[in-house]
């Protein structure tokens, strides 16, 4: 059991949710002045938080063709007009994914998926049961972002089936079979972080496999290993994910998502 500081315990007690920890951890992955390609949901909220705190000059792009939106209403998806509001540029795929992402100027790309494996490979598309395929939405910009962003951050709920040894269908390449991005013929830097509701994983090791960066407060090593489909090296002492600061919590709860649309 990882030891948690008194302050952390107090804050955890004060009811910080896993989503709030995830979104704050995601916000800390972007630096001021960078350009990020985001989806709707936690990544968008994380970027809003980052812009309101340490990264006021962060640029956020939606693949659909929206730059630096400042929505005043909660959007239900990428195609929801609410997310277009007060943008500084409306364009299209060719600009966002082409002249930015493919051009190599996107620093961080946030993606989700059905599965992510130990090499950071992501499956956005289908599941398999006894060899039978069940299709979901497909890649959309997921493969493009995974292939081309300088740093890829995967956001996914933690669970054995969500984090398997190997994805059922490799739609978005990470370090396939532990090979370097160059060997794979890919331009982007590949997976940088996997942020779940239990921990933050990274790939800064020679084997290019997921290793623990930090575990969220209140989670036990046992819980973590039980819910991870691949072996995970646990440093000791176990680093603990920093909780949101009081100001970050205030922004999230009072200004960014008061309706708890994303931060349940």
């Amino acid at each position, binding site marked *: 059991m990882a030891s948690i500081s008194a302050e952390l315990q107090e804050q955890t007690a004060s009811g910080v949710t896993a989503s709030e920890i995830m979104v704050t951890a995601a916000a800390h992955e972007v630096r001021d002045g960078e350009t990020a390609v985001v989806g709707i949901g936690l990544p968008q909220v994380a970027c809003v938080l980052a812009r309101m705190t340490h990264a006021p000059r962060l640029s956020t792009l939606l693949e659909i063709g929206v730059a630096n939106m400042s929505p005043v209403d909660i959007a239900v998806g990428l195609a929801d007009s609410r997310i277009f509001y007060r943008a500084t540029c409306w364009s299209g*795929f060719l600009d966002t994914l082409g002249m930015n992402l493919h051009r190599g100027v996107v620093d961080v790309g946030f993606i989700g998926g059905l599965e992510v494996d130990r090499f950071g490979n992501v499956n956005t598309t289908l599941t398999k049961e006894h060899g039978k395929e069940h299709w979901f939405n497909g890649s959309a910009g997921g493969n*493009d972002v995974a292939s081309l962003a300088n740093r890829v951050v995967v956001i996914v709920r933690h669970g054995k089936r969500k984090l398997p040894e190997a994805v059922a269908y490799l739609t978005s390449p990470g370090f396939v079979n532990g090979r370097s991005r160059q060997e794979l013929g890919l331009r982007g830097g590949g997976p940088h972080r996997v942020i779940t509701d239990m921990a933050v994983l990274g790939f800064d090791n020679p084997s290019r496999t997921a290793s623990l960066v930090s575990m969220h407060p209140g989670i036990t090593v046992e819980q973590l290993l039980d819910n991870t489909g691949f072996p995970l090296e646990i440093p000791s002492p176990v680093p603990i994910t920093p909780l949101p600061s009081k100001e970050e919590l205030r922004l999230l709860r009072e200004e960014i998502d008061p309706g708890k649309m994303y931060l349940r």
Partner: protein
Amino acid sequence: MPDKLKSVAEVVRSIPDGSHIALGGFAIARNAIVFAHEVIRQQKKNLTLSQGVMGMETDLLVGAGLVSKIIVGGGSLDRFGPVRCINRARDTGAIVHIDSSSLSLAFGYLAGALGISFIPIKSLLASEMMERLETAAPDYLRRGKCPFTGEEFVFLRGITPDVSVVHVPIADPNGNCWIHGPRWENEEQAKAGKRLVVVTEELVPTEYIQREPERTVIPGHRVEAVIHQPFGAHPTSVFGCYDYDADHLKLYAEYHKTPEKMNEYLQNYVFGTRDHWEYLEKVGGLRRMNEIKAEAIFGY
């Protein structure tokens, strides 16, 4: 010129079975529902559909059993769920499906629009999507190297649909179109088509277009037909005109869960209506349309 103004019925009549149609919607935004409904009423068969991110229009056509092949980047009904008719067809192998990425579709349309037969891209490499595409669609993509740098690329074949259909908020009778909000792949998709049909919410005089010509995303001389149909995208949204109709999308999300229920939906809302005006009456008429009408400042 006025002779480009056509009814959706006559436009669809001019499209033969087996055509490749590029659709311009994105999930639940700017779907050419009025066009999809008429294609279903006229039972155009064996269609190939291409699209960056599929939405309800494509789900309707696949659900109606009229589609034999799709070339797509992805698709969903956003929070209203997956495109279940399409996913069923992929699960059962009822359709040929070329699944790539949003940018791959945009690049393919760009090449088609520019009249270049292929274009290099750095997506798809090292993925299982690539493995499947290389075997299933060697005429759609293949590996190649840059003659200058030697870098490995995927060479995508230019996509030139028989007919491109784009739903826009504003067009004049010559087909000059403006699009408010993001345009996803619409400009390239429109200009890649061998024929181009636009559905417009508002029909404006050319005088209006001439005030801000830099807004013209699709120049009229490329447009073969202009279909003027207010609320033609319902229940999907048209930024600046109206919001998506959450009630009807929830209803659709229930019906498309099984082929039987989907058929009921088609019988009721498509075959059961003579045209889009009748359809609009059935889904709530003037009162409902007024409820989803866009607020001036926000555009939704």
